[in-house]
């Protein structure tokens, strides 16, 4: 667009009066940059309009100046107060946020540690109870072995060998003074299903029941001490035991 064409559009006048759209204003500013003498022209129009306004000036009420200035002071004071009250320094905001995140992480680790510790504690507690139980058992067994040991070492304890077919052997440890006895099934086979071993003492030619023997070929089995017994016999009986021995099923026997 040439300078003359631009002048004819009247954009300069509208620009001076603030009537141009933002796009038009930009265009005018561009033209003023391209043609510096247009700028002078435009400035001339602006000064002209300023003079026109001055010619139509009305003195405002004398109090207006004070109220304008105090309104600005008031707004400035309010904004300053707002800034002081509500603005948090950047470093403080950042450190507060960092602390919060840190605290969250810390809490999480503590919580995780606590629940881990609780789990471990539960496991340890179970293990400890088991260990205590085992310990008690060992203690009991030790006491049993100790008493059995002292019983076996007792000079008054006699070893009675009960023998049967095929070199089967059981040994009864007999102590009249202590009125106490044990049985050890050395190589007797386990009783068939539905059967049980039962022990009998021969007292005055009568077979007196000494009870059913619970089969265990490793441990010493406690048996009653029968005074005046002449011999000890083990028979195979129906499960639950019998009142009278089945002599045909006599497995081992030994004379005291």
């Amino acid at each position: 667009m040439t300078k003359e064409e631009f002048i004819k559009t009247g954009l300069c006048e509208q620009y001076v009066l603030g009537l141009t759209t933002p796009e038009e204003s930009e265009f005018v500013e561009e033209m003023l940059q391209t043609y510096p003498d247009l700028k002078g022209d435009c400035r001339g129009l602006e000064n002209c309009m300023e003079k026109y306004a001055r010619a139509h000036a009305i003195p405002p009420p004398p109090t207006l100046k004070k109220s304008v200035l105090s309104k600005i002071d008031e707004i400035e004071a309010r904004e300053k107060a707002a800034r002081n009250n509500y603005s948090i320094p950047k470093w403080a905001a950042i450190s507060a946020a960092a602390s919060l995140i840190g605290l969250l992480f810390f809490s999480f680790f503590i919580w995780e540690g606590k629940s881990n510790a609780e789990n471990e504690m539960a496991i340890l507690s179970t293990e400890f109870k088991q260990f205590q139980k085992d310990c008690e058992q060992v203690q009991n067994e030790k006491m049993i072995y100790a008493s059995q040991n002292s019983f076996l070492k007792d000079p008054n304890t006699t070893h009675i060998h009960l023998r049967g077919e095929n070199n089967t052997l059981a040994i009864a440890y007999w102590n009249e003074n202590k009125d106490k006895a044990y049985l050890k099934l050395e190589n007797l086979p386990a009783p068939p299903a539905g059967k049980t071993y039962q022990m009998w003492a021969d007292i005055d030619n009568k077979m007196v029941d000494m009870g059913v023997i619970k089969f265990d070929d490793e441990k010493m089995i406690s048996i009653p001490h029968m005074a005046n017994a002449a011999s000890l016999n083990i028979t195979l009986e129906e499960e639950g035991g019998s009142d009278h021995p089945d002599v045909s099923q006599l497995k081992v026997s030994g004379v005291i």
Partner: protein
Amino acid sequence: MKFAESQIVEMLHQNDKRAIAIIYDQYAPSLYGVVFRIVQSEEVAQDVMQDAFVKVWKKGTTYNSSKGTLFTWLLNITRNTAIDKLRSAGFRNSGKNQSIDNLVYNKVSSRGTNPDEIGVKDLLNDLDEKYREVVDMIYFRGFTQKEVSEELNIPLGTVKTRLRIALRELRGIFEVTGTVVLLFLINSILLLF
């Protein structure tokens, strides 16, 4: 004390509050003249002036002198504030058909106008009424060119042309006035001797 425009602008850019008082002293009567004519109420005009000066204070650092004179910038802020007030209040069209001179001189004649400008005012009467009308409607009453075209029932193109001619004419008048004042001053000085 009169400050140069560049000094005032520098203060504005530095957020120096003294700039507001200086601007007020130098431009308030011209701005108030425009605002009063647009809103046609002393009370509303004072409100508009307060709001406009707050805007000037807040926007002061953004004023770019390469885009226009300080007065044009101030006037655009003030005029827009006045027009917004008028539109929001909904009393935009009251007194639309009143003559500017009747309106102004009836209401504020007691306070009077700047005596320095009386000569200029006489000269302005030389401006053809049809041009003056367009300028005044836009400048002093907040009309858009389109509204002027509707109000006066003339094509928009004609409004634009009249506005352009009016401003050129006004410029001529003010340049002549400047010369007349200068000649008057020279004569006065010569007469002293």
